[in-house]
């Protein structure tokens, strides 16, 4: 599962940074039928989390009420240089993981 992440690569200590993520996923609602009339099983990303150097800064429980290819925009404070990790899981149990490094100047 591909994802596109937009966030600053560098930041000053204590600066508010904006993180935007777009995950490629159909977010199948479970209410649609296929061409032969069979119900398409629900398959949505149900959990998403963002960790900054191992500490959780944002988490979301999603449902079929979120559009296909879910987009999320949220904020965090740049504390230290390191990695920001994005993880998510869908109903089929498929997991996604992305990492971005950030350099924080004093």
């Amino acid at each position, binding site marked *: 599962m591909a994802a596109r992440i937009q966030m600053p690569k560098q930041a000053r200590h204590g600066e*508010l940074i904006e993180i935007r993520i777009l995950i490629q996923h159909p*977010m199948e*609602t479970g*209410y*649609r*039928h296929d061409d032969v009339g069979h119900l398409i099983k629900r398959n949505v990303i149900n959990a998403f989390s963002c960790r*900054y150097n191992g*500490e*959780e*800064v*944002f*988490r*979301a*429980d*999603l*449902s*079929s*009420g*979120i*559009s*296909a290819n*879910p*987009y*999320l*925009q*949220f*904020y*965090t*404070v740049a*504390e230290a240089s390191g990695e920001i990790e994005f993880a998510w899981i869908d109903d089929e149990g498929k997991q996604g993981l992305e990492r971005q490094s950030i350099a924080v100047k004093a």
Partner: protein
Amino acid sequence: MKRREFLAGLSGSIVLPTLPRAAGAQVTQLDPHVWAITKGATVKKGRVKLELPQLADNGNSVAMKVSVESPMTAEDHVRGIHLFSDRNPVTRMASFYLGPRAGKAEVSSRVRLAGSQRVTAMAELSDGSFWSDTAEIVVTLSACLDES
């Protein structure tokens, strides 16, 4: 009888069928989905700002922004923001969990809406209080529930 008079008389006599409110009932504090989070605590109006367009051409993807007035410090911050829908088959659309590390209590996403409705955003603060805001939206083309 003139056509105009006839029509005027008709409009008074027609009783529109009242649909049961269950499907489109407004999300209140007593809604089990809300109660599960608040545990019966009162939900106050204010502090939360839910931004949705007034009209959406396509319910499959509607830009949504929710922000909460909060200093976002360790003592006073937003713990979570919950989104509820009146008409979607899934009432609790999404829950976002924040913390003092978020720095700013604002989340944007895109939502799916099954028809014109009222969307409610409820914020849970670190002091245990709950705040909410609602937004009315007209959806021209609903997000499909069936093959339509």
